[in-house]
């Protein structure tokens, strides 16, 4: 295992566990490409969609121009459940698009008193915090869609949305992502303005940490299977070599030597093949970003440590039940129980500053 940590539990892993309706997805995807679509409930309660396709689209998808789409195969309807050709094709097409959206959240503003109360409970492990000014404003948050894949002789794939405050990289409560309903965009309104600056440098370490967590869940099992196969193959070739050397047939020593050499090479090749098969490979692909302005209460807090002090802005966005978790200045991961360094009051997570006693070694200051 690498030294990368699993993410703190406060980091939102954000999408709903329920699967989107394949029929509704296909209907919307066809409509996006110019089809006239009507979704209705069939007699058995399952959703169905009737679509009139432009001829170019019908040709591209090898469908009739008038097509009934249903979740399961039946006469007169094209199936679009998991694993079907139509869903597979549309999923491929829609998931290959890359881009960003700028939007406004249509959510009620949070209460200032709630934000102030939460800020009053905001604690640092080695510093004093005084609550200062409280104000309401729209704050930009970035929601970054990411495909995570971990692969060896097995494969695990996940789709996650990492959320962060665009200005400082703080991680918002998962309730915000749920409230924004990115899968329906029902709480979003498109906005025509320039893309705000996003603190993108916090993403790579956070994605690496997610990958390590995902891979970690498989590592023991993969290692066990690798060990088992390695031992079996190794023992097999040992036995073959032993039989070659001690076999009843009296052979020419040169022939025995050549045979042993051949077996040793074959063993090395088979073991190398096992290594390749059981190497866990993890990768993340960023697939979209939505930068959304969210009504937010900002609370300034004054952080004092010995002779130094610093003002931090804490955020409570709409729908959130907790303040955003600020980014560690050292590793850029969310710092759930932060401490600060003595000289510059850098905010440090428990991994960067495991002990808050005495003078901290600050990875940012380098001392």
């Amino acid at each position, binding site marked *: 295992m690498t030294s990368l940590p699993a993410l703190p539990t406060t980091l939102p892993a954000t999408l709903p566990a329920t699967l989107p309706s394949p029929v509704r997805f296909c209907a919307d995807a066809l409509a996006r490409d110019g089809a006239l679509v009507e979704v209705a409930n069939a007699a058995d309660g399952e959703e169905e969609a009737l679509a009139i396709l432009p001829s170019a689209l019908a040709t591209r998808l090898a469908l009739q121009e008038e097509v009934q789409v249903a979740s399961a195969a039946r006469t007169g309807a094209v199936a679009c459940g998991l*694993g079907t050709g139509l869903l597979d094709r549309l999923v491929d097409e829609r998931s290959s698009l890359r881009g960003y959206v700028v939007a406004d959240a249509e959510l009620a503003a949070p209460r200032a008193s709630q934000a102030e109360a939460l800020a009053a409970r905001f604690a640092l492990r080695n510093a004093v915090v005084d609550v200062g000014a409280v104000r309401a404003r729209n704050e930009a948050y970035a929601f970054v869609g990411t495909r995570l894949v971990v692969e060896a002789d097995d494969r695990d794939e996940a789709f996650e949305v990492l959320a962060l405050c665009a200005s400082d990289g703080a991680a918002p409560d998962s309730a915000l992502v749920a409230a924004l309903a990115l899968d329906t965009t029902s709480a979003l309104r498109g906005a025509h303005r320039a893309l705000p600056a996003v603190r993108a440098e916090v993403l790579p370490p956070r994605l690496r940490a997610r990958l390590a967590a995902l891979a970690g869940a498989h590592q023991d099992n993969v290692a066990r299977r690798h060990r088992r196969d390695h031992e079996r193959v190794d023992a097999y070739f040992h036995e073959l070599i032993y039989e070659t050397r001690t076999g009843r047939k009296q052979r020419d020593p040169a022939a025995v030597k050549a045979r042993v050499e051949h077996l040793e090479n074959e063993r090395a090749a088979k073991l190398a093949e096992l290594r390749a098969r059981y190497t866990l490979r993890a990768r993340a692909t960023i697939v979209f970003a939505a930068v959304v302005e969210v009504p937010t209460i900002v609370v300034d807090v004054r952080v004092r440590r010995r002779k130094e002090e610093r003002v931090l802005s804490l955020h409570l966005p709409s729908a959130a039940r907790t303040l955003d978790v600020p980014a560690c200045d050292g590793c850029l991961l969310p710092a759930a129980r932060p401490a600060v360094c003595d000289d510059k009051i850098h905010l440090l997570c428990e991994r960067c500053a495991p002990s808050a006693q005495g003078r901290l070694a600050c990875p940012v200051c380098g001392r």
Partner: protein
Amino acid sequence: MEIADVTTGDVTALLRAPMTLVDLSLAVRAHTLASAATFTDLLSPQSLAGVDAHTYQHDTVRRVLRVLRGRALLADEVGLGKTVEAILVLREYQLRGMARRTLVIAPPALVPQWRGELLAKAGVQAATLDDHAFEQDPAAFLARDGVVLASLAKARGAKVAPLLQSASWDLVVVDEAHHIKKQSTLGYKLVDGLKSRFLLLLTATPIETSLEELYALVTLLRPGQLTTASAFKAQFVDKSDPTSPKNRERLRQLLGDVMVRNTRAACGLKLPPRFVTTAVVEPLAAERALYDRVVDLVRADAQAARRTLLGTTLLLEAGSSPDAVRATLDRATALDGPAFAAAREAARAATQTKKLEQLVALVRAHGGHALVFTRFRATLAAIERAFNDAGVRHVVVSGAQSADEKALAVERFREERCALVSTDVGAEGTNLQHCNVVVSFDVPWNPMLLEQRIGRVHRMGQTRDVHVYNLAMKGSAEEKLLDVLDRRLHLFELVVGEMDMVLGNLADDRDLEERVLALYAASKDEAEIDRGFDALAAEIGAARGTYENSKKLDDAVFGEDFAA
């Protein structure tokens, strides 16, 4: 563990292309759907067209994916659909992004069948080593994603094997894996040297003559699973009977880690019996004369070493109907010579066939509800005319029709319980179990085609006895072939798939069509042709014996212990 690096560049690149909220909503749902399922819910069954996989096949696929982790010996009894299971596994890995590069190795005769099944059932366009692109640039060809089909004969060759072995595969499927059961063979060495995460070996007969064949196959999948060959022999092979294992319980445990074998009995798959009747029809004089002229033409062409394809077609057509021969000769206007002139003359003279009368009588005897096959469209038209004249209600399905037209005809066939006249291509992929009578108006020389025709009604879901009639003109190649296959060897009594196994055991790997034509082309007279069919009967009889012995052996060793 290797964790690919993620950079801020990935984000900044993304922030150059604006998208709409609708696109965002679709993207979120598309990615959620794409990374949704586990192997508990198979995706592949829905991705296959025209395949209604059985529960045991689903269980097999789950076992291969979840327990055997993609390295398995699929040893179902014949006719239980190993190919479908392999395609399900292939598609499951494809849909989950785990098999971008797949190699399928099969005996040469099965390569076109695999290509067709992958396309028709899974929509997968497979490349083959016979493609021009492979000849041009083998390395580039083998570096592409997708499915590559290779005949074992070509793949094990000195030029091709190193290319296949230097490529990196996600999944390798070896069909009829008993062909690589000996460790000293090139085929075994080829597969042993392939680099692949997943490996499926398909065979109904993992043991044909000795337990060591099983050892070889298992060692390909998991080296060391059965220890070394000598230790395996000492532990499991009874010297007095090399086909009967010692320490059965231990062997059963070890095989359970690599093998699935579903049996007909365990799957509860029992089909009603079928009764096959050869109806030999005495030809009219003009019909007989036409047949003789076509045989003369085949011999003349053979002497001149030309046009074997045309010869085969004409001889098959002569066994079907004069209309079929006439249609071909009318199209071949550029061909001349005395043999052609005589054949054309005879075709003009032969305007009727007695087989039509026999057909009408047969269909009427079964209440008018029968499935009639012919290979030729001209014959199909003649049958239609005869049915119209006799007042037999019928519908027609042929390759010339659209999918909707075919579906409509099949629907009428079911609802009106009339006759359905179809070409082989026309009825492909349709299940017609509501009917229990199959008439082959003409008999293909490849018995597997006959099996496919019968299989349209003699399949799961059939509840009644099935009656099969093969019409053949007396003295024709079809009559002689049916005499061998049916009367002498009773091959049509075999269960679905077994005939394939028997014919796969023939020493001569030319297909039967080629061999029948060669008999006619090389013979001087009828007696010589008959001797040729006798030799063929002896060869097929021996192949059947070999198959039945190995089946007995496999049943004895494996029983029902390895069902999914």
